[in-house]
């Protein structure tokens, strides 16, 4: 399986993402600069964390109009897995690939620490290797992760099982309904504030994030590898 890690000016989790895929997951991965106009040959698209365009105007607002975004929107429409982590999530929200918006953390502080997440839906292509209701530990690192959507949108997210991860116990940022990660209606675009790519090796404090990437590969194999 071939993964693309999109690199925007100001991305800073791209190398962690690359490492997670290449060294821990053991799949093919390439960096793709934001001005590229093709994503041909990639099976999955990863938007890493960081501060694209210095978070100017709003987080993700300027990156959303990068050249490569047209291709990401096409890939999402074609049903390919698209994962946005942290700033990647913010970009997907600004692009309208996911509903809602991000506000400053309720505490106004940048929070960087491991948090507990609960798997609310293990039937997505990103969470199939977890158990339903499993509690995992993954780090967060953000100043604007306070997810917001109106009541109507929230009801729709709940009804379609689009909420994949919630904060377990303490809500670190004030996010509505403890939301940490959501998919689009089709289930092939996931945005999440926690960093699974920083939790892929027990040497770094835990490997609970690795199953997310394994889920993507498993789901891809189920539909793409011809059974002998």
């Amino acid at each position: 399986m071939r993964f693309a890690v999109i690199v925007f000016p100001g991305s800073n989790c791209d190398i962690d993402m690359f490492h997670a895929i290449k060294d821990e997951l053991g799949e093919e991965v390439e960096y793709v600069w934001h001005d590229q106009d093709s994503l041909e040959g990639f099976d999955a698209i990863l938007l890493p964390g960081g501060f694209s365009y210095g978070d100017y105007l709003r987080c993700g607002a300027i990156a959303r109009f990068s050249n490569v975004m047209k291709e990401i929107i096409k890939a999402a429409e074609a049903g390919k897995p698209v994962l946005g982590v942290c700033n990647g999530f913010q970009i997907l929200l600004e692009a309208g690939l996911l509903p809602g918006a991000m506000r400053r953390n309720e505490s106004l502080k940048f929070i960087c620490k491991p948090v507990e997440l609960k798997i609310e839906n293990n039937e997505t292509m990103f969470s199939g290797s977890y158990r339903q209701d499993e509690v995992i530990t993954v780090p967060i690192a953000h100043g604007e992760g306070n997810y917001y959507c109106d009541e109507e949108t929230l009801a729709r997210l709940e009804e379609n099982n689009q909420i994949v991860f919630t904060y377990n116990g303490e809500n670190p940022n004030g996010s509505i309904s403890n939301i940490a990660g959501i998919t689009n209606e089709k289930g092939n675009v996931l945005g999440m504030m926690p960093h699974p790519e920083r939790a892929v090796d027990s040497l770094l404090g835990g490997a609970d994030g690795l199953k997310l990437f394994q889920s993507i590969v498993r789901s891809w194999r189920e539909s793409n590898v011809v059974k002998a």
Partner: protein
Amino acid sequence: MFKVKVYVTLRESVLDPQGVAVKNSLHSLNFSEIEDVRIGKYMELTIEKSERPVEEVVKEACEKLLANTVIEDYRFEIEECVAL
């Protein structure tokens, strides 16, 4: 030439954590008469000339990029001025 002043603020229904922090700070300085604070952004646009009505251009820019209408409201003032 046109000077456009654009104001972007969080919607009334969306909690503004910065505004709350500033309000609390004002209260601790005894500005008890200040009941509420909302923090927003102020932008100045310069338009030399435009084929389309200026209002239409600014509105589109606000909707597309300058404001995120999921959580923000915008308003603007257009001033026509003589270029120096």
